[in-house]
């Protein structure tokens, strides 16, 4: 085969922490002889962990959207908003740009993560060689946008801290934001626990 060799084909295993290359002697629980961290060719149980975290995140995503995340009180006018109703309100009240930002950060990004991670997991488990480069790009995208998904949580916590004028204006967090935060954290953990090398662990057909 013209393809380049892989570590396991050479019987080698690399330490993730210190970069030490060891001979893969098929031990059950190998550890790096230099730094002591555990050695593994791929992240252990990557698919299962990612699946578990992804499913948990998705479960939390439901109440995060159904329950209101923020209560705004202005002059006695109590307004409880869920994520989507907040977006709609922003749009209706003449801030479509903000609405788009919030919608992207709170709806599009989490959904994108769910879809991307599920696609990656399914394709990795099947071992299909389909669009491996693009899938890698998708993974990097998910990793990158993961940091920005907490926008809603930040907005709520900042507003809660800043807007406390008693009767005139007040902002209070509601349970929805907790679930939203959990969703974001769990999707980040899921994308972290996914081993992108699994994308490439398949029979090379194209090269």
């Amino acid at each position, binding site marked *: *085969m013209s393809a380049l*060799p892989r570590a396991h*084909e*050479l*019987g*080698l*295993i690399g330490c993730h922490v210190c970069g*030490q*290359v*060891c*001979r*893969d*002697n098929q*031990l*059950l*629980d*190998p*550890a*790096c*002889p*230099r730094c*002591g961290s*555990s*050695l593994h060719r791929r992240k*252990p*149980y990557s698919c*299962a*962990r990612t699946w*578990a*975290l992804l*499913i*948990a*995140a998705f*479960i*939390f995503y*439901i*109440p995060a959207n159904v*329950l209101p995340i923020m209560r705004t009180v202005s*002059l*006695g*006018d*109590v*307004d*409880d908003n869920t994520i989507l*109703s907040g977006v709609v309100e922003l749009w209706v009240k003449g801030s479509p740009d903000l609405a788009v930002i919030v919608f992207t950060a709170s709806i599009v990004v989490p959904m994108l993560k769910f879809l991307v991670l599920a696609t990656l997991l399914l394709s990795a488990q099947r071992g299909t060689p389909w669009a491996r480069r693009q899938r890698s790009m998708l993974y990097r995208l998910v990793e990158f946008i993961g940091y920005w998904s907490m926008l809603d949580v930040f907005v709520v916590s900042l507003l809660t801290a800043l807007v406390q004028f008693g009767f005139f204006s007040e902002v209070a967090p509601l349970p929805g934001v907790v679930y939203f935060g*959990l969703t974001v954290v*769990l999707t980040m953990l899921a994308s972290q626990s996914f081993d992108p090398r699994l994308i490439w662990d398949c029979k090379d057909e194209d090269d």
Partner: protein
Amino acid sequence: MTDQNTPNVSGPNLPEPVVKRRRVNASWIWLVPAVAALIGLSLVINAWRQQGPAITISFQTAQGLESGKTVVKYKDVVIGKVTSIRLSQDHGKVVVKVDLDKSASDIAVSDSRFWVVRPRIGLGGVSGIDTLLSGSFIGVDVGKSSQPQTDFVGLEAPPSVLHDSRGKSFTLQSGDLGSLDIGSPVYYRRIQVGRVASYKLDDNGKGVTLQIFVDSPYDKFVTTESRFWNASGVDVSLSADGLKLNTQSLATVLAGGVAFNDAPGPHPDEKPAAENTTYTLFDTEANAMAPPDGEPRYIVMRFDQPLRGLAVDAPVEFRGINFGRVVSIRMDYDEKTNQFPIYVGALIYPDRLGRVHTKLEAIAKSRGDSDESQIVTTMVAQGLRAQAKVGNLLTGQLFISLDIVPHALKATDYNPNARPLQIPTIPGSFDKLQEQMAQIVDKISKIPFDAIGNNLNHTLADLDSTLKQVNGDLLPAFHETLKGANKTLSAANQTLGTANSALSADSPLQQNLAGTLQELQRMARSLRALTDYLNTQPSSLIRGRGKDAPLPDTGTPAAQPQQGSKP
């Protein structure tokens, strides 16, 4: 391929991995979604348990309502939330869907009432101010029924009486609504004790039925003897006492109200009225306090003279007691006499005559008459007549007065079997007065003023001659007499002057009198000396005067030895 690369990477100096204790099994990771699922499940269960019944309320308008935001409040506690607002099938109403809390599920019963609490400003006051800022909400009055219901028709205005308010409802019958409205106050002795709960037009359209609610503990003052009247507006009355202005309160003047009180007089058997007792709502307090009118009777009177000043609603009085009112005034044409008689119809309330009516009724019953028309016939025979009298001299307003007129002309057109009864009439008192005045004027005009004047002239001439005689004969004689008298008087004057001179201080008479008196004084002194001597020497009367006795004429005998002994 691998063989080529192997020597390069798997050098002999590559270390072997060491064995480390096993890390956490991967299957534990499934706890995370399990926990998430548990949390999610608990949320669902919690929501399901919190979920009360969903009800729909229809309103005329959705003003102030917002789905997902407007709440349902009972006693200011949020018990539900509006989930959707849509139009009804025929677009005539707004159907509001409300999710009630589980704790408020027993609110959805058939007699619960819902309304939208909005800021309202009425004459009676301001309500719902807090909703100006917080937005409207749906108020609820929880019913007492146990029959569940999910579709309600919302009230357009807050109910004035809530189910949990304590008190009693009463029904009032009225001819019209006046200025009353739902929520108008009900006063007892000018204290607000309740309010008008509802009103509706009677089915036959001939009156208005009001429901009022009197709060506990005032409801016990509504008794079987209570009278209700419309206390709206200002009652201005001009009477012999002067101008009276009577109102309940300023709010009532503007917004209307109902007042009640016991009828005047003692009520030994009065007791608190039962719930939903029906009363009549009178126009004024005076009408309310008047004795009950009872069944009205309709009578007709024919007047041949013009009735200027008689109006509909003018009182009909029997011997000064108001017991009816004029309801119609019609003119007719009588072909036989070629006259324009006026027929006045009146409703009379015999009950207002009190005992008169009860006694007459008893008599009629004992005689076996179907009604009192026989008695009226008798009374007409005795002289019962109707008269149009002037009630007010300034305005010339007339009223109908029924009275027994002695020596009345026999009624010719009275028919005891006619219905309505036609009471015979006699000309009104003012007409009579006019007639009598005319008669007086007529008599005056008949007096022979010319003859009287001539006679008077003759008499005066006679008097003149008599006086002349007196002047010529009598007066000179009188003059002489006076002169004589004058003389006599001057003689008398002279006599008095002589008397005066005789009595003056330097007159000889006076001198003589003074001398005589001095002599008399002297004599009295010698007499006293004698008596003194005799007092001391009584024996001298017999023996005579002693030798050395002093002279009896002056000084005392004791004085001399005393004087002599001094030197």
